[in-house]
């Protein structure tokens, strides 16, 4: 989150929008955003449908029959302006890789 926030001005310059998604409730996310001075939006998704749609679960479903909750795995997804998923990576985000891709997409979009 910290690294995305540091690069936020570059995301904006490359016409990208950043959304953080978590299963935490709105109040928890609000405190989290404040503690980390986040400039981008956090989406509270307690029913986990976004995580499921974007494949952020490695092997287990979000809610298990025994009542336990399986939180999102860390996944970065880049969706282009046409809604096509152009990048997926699990684990810690590689910001340089993401920014290089966004530059490429912006060049493609501008036909350069």
């Amino acid at each position, binding site marked *: 989150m910290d690294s995305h926030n*540091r690069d936020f001005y*570059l995301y904006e*310059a*490359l016409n990208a929008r950043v959304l953080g998604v978590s299963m935490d409730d709105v109040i928890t996310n609000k405190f989290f955003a404040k503690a980390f*001075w986040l*400039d981008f939006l956090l989406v509270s998704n307690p029913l986990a449908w976004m995580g499921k749609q974007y494949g952020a679960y490695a092997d287990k479903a979000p809610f298990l029959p025994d009542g336990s909750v399986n939180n999102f795995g860390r996944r970065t997804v880049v969706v282009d302006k046409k809604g096509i998923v152009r990048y997926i990576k699990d684990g810690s985000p590689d910001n*340089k890789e993401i920014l290089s891709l966004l*530059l490429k997409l912006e*060049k493609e979009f*501008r036909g350069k």
Partner: protein
Amino acid sequence: MEKKSVIRMSLGIWVILFALTALLLGGCATLAPEKPKIMVPTDRGTVLFLDKYEFKAPVGWSLMRNLEGGDFELGFMKIEPGAFPSQTTFMYDEEPYGSSRDLEGRANQYCTRFLFNSGMIPEVTKREKTRVMGLDALVLYFEGENPVQKEKAKSRVYLIKKGNRVISFVCTQWRPLKGQFDMRVFEAFDNFVQSFKFLKKTFYENLDEEIQKLKG
């Protein structure tokens, strides 16, 4: 006659074996990739680090290098006499804690996170403006104790405004609670910082240029 032919045969086998070994070894020699030297000394008393940076390498310190990216770009470490943890590390970190691109703002954010994982909240004992590599910078002096782990730390952090970003140099000395800090290592750290030069544009500087070109 038979004896001679046996000798010739065995000699022939040895020659073939020798030739095969030579070929294999030769093959290995040509296939092994040459490892690039991490630090190359110059005649200016400095070292070139992977052709990216030039600085005065501290004598008697071990090089730490982050092989998987992450917390720091390069650093040095020294184990010092005394009970654990008597050691000092210093490093160049291009992504210091926080996200503000303003030096004062970044310093405020930095102070809330620095050494947080060590279980201590170090106090800023001094904070002063300075210049490093001709750039605006802030130096933060920290000191903190962890009575549970029975250890203490003293740190000096340079936050430097480089282009659109803030970079940092960080030195932390660890001691047991009753140990004495050694200020000489901070001199070695200061010399390292003051001698540091960038030999290439960073990824972010190149990206800024690409974005300007795209917009222009």
